[in-house]
Structure formats: structure tokens, C-alpha cells
């Protein structure tokens, strides 16, 4: 196992940076969740057609954004690890995977709970729903693949390749509602055109999205720091075994 820590460009610097940023991310996430949940559940109005089920959107949409964002983080970190042989990229990708999988599960479950009252069914093999389910399998496949090797280095490499190849699914999920005739509605929020949502419903959504992003960053920092510590423990154990 040659992946000793010195090959990191700056693990110590990363640890210091992570330690400094972590409280801000965690604190920000807590505040955003408190405000977001209040707006989502109490302060915002029911939708004139969907009634109170519109409140499911405030967890469903941010979770879906993070599911895609998480996978993109994983693919970028894997590219860095593969191209520049940067071990920290692997640790970031491996730390992001369970978080992304969690958000994908939330997006699927909340989507099904929204679909039953609004579409009359929990599930339909619609292009959007199916591609998000494939996204979940890619996450789980990545996690399984990384641990399928005795040598963590080879597992990281195999996982990085899957993460990169699998990234093609992200634009498929994003544009599925435009390319195919889907039951799932098209995007209602686009940075360019005026979002087709009334501010009273858009505001809670954006606050909850910020909360989800801050929580994602918090969890990622925690898991990367843990991965660096675990890596150090493996190196120490290796050294003692040889020593």
C-alpha cells in the first residue's frame, strides 16, 4: 500500500481548513433548517391545486438537487484523483458517496409520497423517476466497488472510473423531463428565465436548498476528516507491522 499521506498535496492544511470551516457550515445549516422548516410547514400557503402536499416539494427538490450535486462532486474528485494521482480526491469522492446516496433516497421517497396523492400512484417507470433510481444504483455500486478490493488503492481507482463513467446519468436525469414525455413536471426554476413559482413558495424552497447544501458541506467535511484520520491509522498499522 504505497498511498502514504505525503503524496497528499496538503492533508494537514486540508484538516486545518476543514476544522475552521466546519462550525460555520454546521451552524449555517442549523439556522437555515430552522428557518426553512418554519417557512415550509407554517408560514407558506398551501397551493391552490395541490393543497398542503406542495410542502413536500421543500424537501423533495433540494434533496434531488443534492443527489445530482453529490454525484458531480464525486465525479470531479475522482477525475482529480485519476488525472493528478491526488489521493485526497479519492477520499473526497468516497466521503461524498454515502451522503449523495442518502439524498437520492430522500428524493425518491418524498417523490413517491407526493406522487400518490397527486398522480394517484407511488411509482411509474417515468424517464425522470427511472434515471434517479439508476443514480441510486450508481451510488451503491460505487460504494460496493470501492470496498471490493483488498488493496484500497485499487478499490479507489476502480471506483473513480465508475464515478466518471456514471456521471453521464446526471444530464440524463436533468434533461429527462425535456427529452421524453414524462409524467414528472419540467423544471420550474431556471436561473435565466423568471422562475415560474410565486415568491411565497419560492422563498421556503431556496432557504431549504441552502440548508441542504450547508448540511451536505458539513457532512462532507466530517467524513473527509474521518477518512484522512483512518488513512493515517492504516499507515501507522502498516508501519508497525513492518517495523
Amino acid at each position: 500500500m504505497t498511498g502514504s499521506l505525503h503524496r497528499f498535496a496538503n492533508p494537514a492544511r486540508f484538516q486545518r481548513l476543514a476544522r475552521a470551516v466546519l462550525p460555520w457550515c454546521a451552524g449555517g445549516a442549523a439556522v437555515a433548517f430552522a428557518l426553512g422548516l418554519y417557512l415550509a410547514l407554517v408560514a407558506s400557503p398551501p397551493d391552490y391545486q395541490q393543497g398542503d402536499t406542495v410542502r413536500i416539494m421543500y424537501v423533495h427538490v433540494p434533496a434531488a438537487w443534492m443527489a445530482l450535486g453529490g454525484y458531480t462532486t464525486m465525479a470531479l474528485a475522482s477525475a482529480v484523483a485519476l488525472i493528478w494521482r491526488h489521493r485526497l480526491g479519492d477520499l473526497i469522492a468516497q466521503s461524498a458517496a454515502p451522503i449523495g446516496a442518502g439524498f437520492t433516497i430522500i428524493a425518491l421517497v418524498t417523490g413517491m409520497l407526493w406522487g400518490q396523492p397527486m398522480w394517484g400512484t407511488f411509482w411509474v417507470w417515468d424517464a425522470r423517476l427511472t434515471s434517479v433510481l439508476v443514480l441510486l444504483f450508481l451510488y451503491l455500486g460505487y460504494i460496493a466497488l470501492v470496498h471490493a478490493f483488498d488493496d484500497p488503492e485499487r478499490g479507489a481507482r476502480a471506483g473513480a472510473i465508475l464515478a466518471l463513467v456514471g456521471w453521464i446519468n446526471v444530464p440524463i436525469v436533468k434533461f429527462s423531463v425535456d427529452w421524453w414525455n414524462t409524467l414528472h413536471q419540467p423544471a420550474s426554476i431556471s436561473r435565466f428565465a423568471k422562475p415560474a413559482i410565486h415568491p411565497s413558495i419560492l422563498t421556503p424552497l431556496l432557504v431549504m436548498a441552502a440548508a441542504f447544501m450547508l448540511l451536505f458541506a458539513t457532512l462532507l467535511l466530517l467524513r473527509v476528516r474521518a477518512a484522512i484520520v483512518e488513512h493515517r491509522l492504516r499507515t501507522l498499522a502498516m508501519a508497525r507491522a513492518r517495523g
Partner: protein
Amino acid sequence: MMKEFLEMGGYAAFVWPAYGATLFVLALLIVDSVRRLKRGQDELARLEGSEE
């Protein structure tokens, strides 16, 4: 007032499980991430403590 709030316009059976599932998965992620870091740091402190 509270009863109306909990009913969620008759959709309580969908809105509350959606929020419940979300908070459950997020709590799982938070607990696992924090515990994993703590466990590693304690182990490292023990190992590096005994070496010096």
C-alpha cells in the same frame, strides 16, 4: 389550530411521512459521520499517545 396544522389539509398521511423520512435519513448521516470522526480521532490519539 394545532389540529388543523397536523391535518395538512387532509394530506397528513403524505406530508408528515415525507418530512419524517427526510429527517430520519439526515439524522442517520449526521450521527454516522460524527461518530466515525470521533472513533478515528480517539484511536489515533491512543496510538500516537503510546508511541511518543
